[in-house]
């Protein structure tokens, strides 16, 4: 390569002063102007620390012990704090993962955006405002003027990430560090934000260090990639080489973990409908304080018709706010419907079969951290559903719990508490709790989206094998089309509370009819 390096990190080592542990060891990589370098790794790989070290923004108690970080030949580990502050923002910008947390909720957007310009340029207030408006328009914010006066909470996550991007790119930094910039966004916003980012970077000649765990994004946006595992850099190279002919075993494992389209249930149509939503509608009332006043009504689910057959997996996909989660809850009658009804094995659910219905249905949640009672032991969590099954002896029940824990690969952990387990293990507990009663129907609400890539693959595989073994039907709610492609028999696409398209998986993926479906598919990065 003949272009000089903008940034070169040389054998960086970070250690914790609390326990003396080495968190990042011997990491070296280069980055040229205008280039997008992806830094890939799972949680705990040290990728975020390695990137934050560039800006000197390490959490308290963590400090670099060896190595150099050269930016245009200047060692950032040696500069004083004033010089570092001058570099931050002006030379090196950073976009954070969580758009809900990275903008100050108490300060107007205009002021937050202007802050960097005021610090690093001599522009007048009017010039600053003009620049802000310009770039907001550039990132396609409607009504930029109003946006300057608004507070962050008035915007959706995708919008906030664009504002964030705008405020960082406003200073035309030489280097942009993007730390999982779209992980918290749904598929559609993810594509939009990253498209904008690479576009702006290209225009300004800014180098981008894109930190991500999503290999699809790497393939689509980066030119070169480095892979990190447990604080060590395991592979460096061109994206094509890294993704399609990986050398390192860990990289290979990551790539293998990517979801693949699986076989479809063959003999569909013969079975009777297990559960059926007919014209199901749900509306919410805005709750305001008061003894007498009632809030406004908002419709989140609008006359939805959906049938799930025995043993079948139906995927519900859509962006955030499309009503897919509400649909799942409403079909389980966890949320009262405002219109239509749910039919279980052909019968409307009423007082007589409500109990039976409840025993036959289960739910797996997205967040494995809040779905388990932190004060219960794993064994108790899994055993609890059996307490409500009448004709099952104590011995049988404990037998069943042991069996189920074995099924999900958690044998021997019955006496642990949830916080002692990893995210993947917790999700296995949640699955065990769902299947222990051998239900006929499970709603899985984004069951893997909070997990690391390799863990996602394991959990999905587990789910599929369990479904094969116990034959339950599943409503699989997800915004991740890749995962949907792997597990589903049929796909339902939702937008603003309505079903816009449904059909067999292959039909929906290969010949999408609705524009929204097509947009979703287009935004899904794949290798």
């Amino acid at each position, binding site marked *: 390569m003949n272009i000089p390096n903008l940034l070169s990190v040389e054998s960086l080592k970070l250690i914790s002063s609390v326990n003396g542990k080495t968190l990042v060891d011997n990491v070296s990589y280069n980055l040229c102007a205008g280039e997008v370098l992806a830094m890939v790794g799972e949680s705990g790989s040290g990728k975020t620390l390695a990137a934050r070290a560039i800006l000197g923004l390490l959490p308290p108690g963590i400090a670099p012990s060896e190595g150099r970080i050269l930016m245009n030949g200047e060692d950032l580990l040696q500069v004083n704090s004033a010089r570092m502050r001058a570099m931050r923002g002006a030379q090196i910008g950073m976009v954070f993962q969580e758009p809900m947390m990275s903008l100050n909720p108490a300060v107007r957007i205009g002021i937050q955006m202007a802050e960097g310009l005021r610090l690093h340029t001599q522009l007048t207030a009017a010039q600053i405002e003009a620049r802000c408006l310009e770039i907001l328009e550039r990132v396609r914010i409607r009504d930029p003027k109003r946006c300057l006066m608004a507070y962050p909470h008035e915007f959706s996550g995708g919008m906030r990430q664009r504002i964030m991007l705008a405020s960082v790119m406003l200073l035309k930094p030489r280097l942009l560090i993007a730390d999982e910039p779209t992980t918290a966004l749904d598929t559609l916003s993810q594509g939009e934000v990253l498209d904008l980012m690479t576009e702006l970077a290209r225009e300004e000649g800014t180098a981008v260090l894109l930190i991500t765990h999503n290999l699809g994004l790497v393939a689509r946006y980066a030119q070169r990639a480095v892979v990190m595992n447990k604080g060590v850099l395991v592979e460096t190279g061109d994206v094509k080489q890294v993704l399609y002919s990986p050398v390192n075993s860990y990289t290979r494992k990551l790539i293998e973990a990517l979801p693949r389209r699986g076989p479809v249930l063959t003999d569909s149509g013969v079975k009777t409908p297990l559960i059926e939503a007919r014209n199901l509608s749900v509306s919410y009332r805005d709750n305001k304080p008061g003894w007498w006043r009632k809030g406004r009504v908002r419709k989140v689910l609008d006359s939805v018709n959906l049938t799930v057959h025995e043993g079948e997996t139906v995927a519900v996909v859509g962006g955030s706010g499309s009503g897919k989660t509400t649909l799942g809850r409403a079909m389980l009658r*966890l949320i009262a419907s405002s219109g239509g009804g749910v039919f279980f094995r052909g019968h409307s659910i009423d007082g007589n079969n409500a109990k039976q219905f*409840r025993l036959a249905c*289960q*739910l797996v949640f997205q967040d494995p951290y809040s779905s388990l*009672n*932190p004060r*219960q032991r794993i064994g108790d969590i899994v055993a609890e559903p059996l307490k409500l099954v009448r004709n099952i002896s104590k011995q049988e029940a404990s037998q069943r719990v042991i069996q189920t824990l074995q099924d999900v690969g958690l044998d021997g952990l019955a006496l642990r508490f949830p916080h002692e387990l990893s995210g993947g293990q917790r999700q296995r507990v949640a699955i065990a709790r769902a299947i222990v009663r051998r239900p006929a129907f499970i709603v899985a609400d984004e069951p893997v989206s909070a997990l690391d890539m390799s863990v996602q693959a394991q959990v999905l595989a587990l789910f599929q094998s369990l479904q094969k073994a116990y034959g339950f039907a599943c409503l699989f709610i997800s915004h991740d089309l890749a995962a949907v492609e792997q597990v589903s028999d049929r796909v339902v696409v939702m937008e603003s509370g309505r079903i816009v398209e449904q059909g067999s998986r292959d039909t929906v993926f290969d010949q999408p009819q609705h524009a929204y479906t097509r947009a979703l598919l287009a935004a899904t990065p794949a290798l």
Partner: protein
Amino acid sequence: MKAFFKHKNGLIGGAMIGFIFVVALAAFFWTPYNPLAINLHIRLQPPSATHWLGTDEFGRDVLSRVMAGAAASGTVALLSVISAVGLGLFMGVVAGFFRNWVDRVLMAINDTLLAFPGILFALGVMMIVGANKWGIIIALGLAYTPTVVRVVRGTVLSIREKEYVEASRMIGNSELVTMLRHVLPNCAAPVAVLTTSMVGWVLLSESALSFLGLGVPPPAPTWGNMLASSRQYMQSAVWLSLAPGLCIALTLLGINLLGDAVRDKLDPRMVVA
């Protein structure tokens, strides 16, 4: 560095409270002198080798009284906190979990109690139930209940949105089971933190009540009534107020340090209002 300080603070706090606890326990069995024994020949004597902390206006040994006071103050503080926490936990959990008319009625009662200035409410209650140990426990317990209710209800409101509560419903558990098995145990952390700070508040309130004229009746010494009655001798016998005053201050210091450590351990983000 960080962990070191945290660790150390909690340890120091724990050691202080532990020491006071041991002294209080010991005082049930042994004190240097009988804390109630009056000796009119040695009134208001400054600290000496025979009476390490001096004697009070009736010639009673201050050290013995401070020790016995630890037991009495501790009992009052613990029992009032326990009653406040018990009642508050019940009201708070019920109100927070059901969120219907029960909530409204309970919160109306709670708002009513909150609108009373706590210490004066306790004063009024003591006048009715009588100025004795049980009176003060009832009065302070009632006075601090609304605070517990508020914290508990707030916690319950956030817990009931947690997915494991929904999971419990999904399993088919009744609301009562869900509340007892999944909501109540998870209130433990904030309640534990609140409890530690409340022990301190109650100690201070007990001394303020004594100051206002109604505390634990004599001759039983509490730090509060010792401090309140020593005010008289602030000019002539300063050791009388220093001993119980420092005991209260040090205990609160210990409780706060310990409380911080408990909070850090249970939930670093929690802030008790």
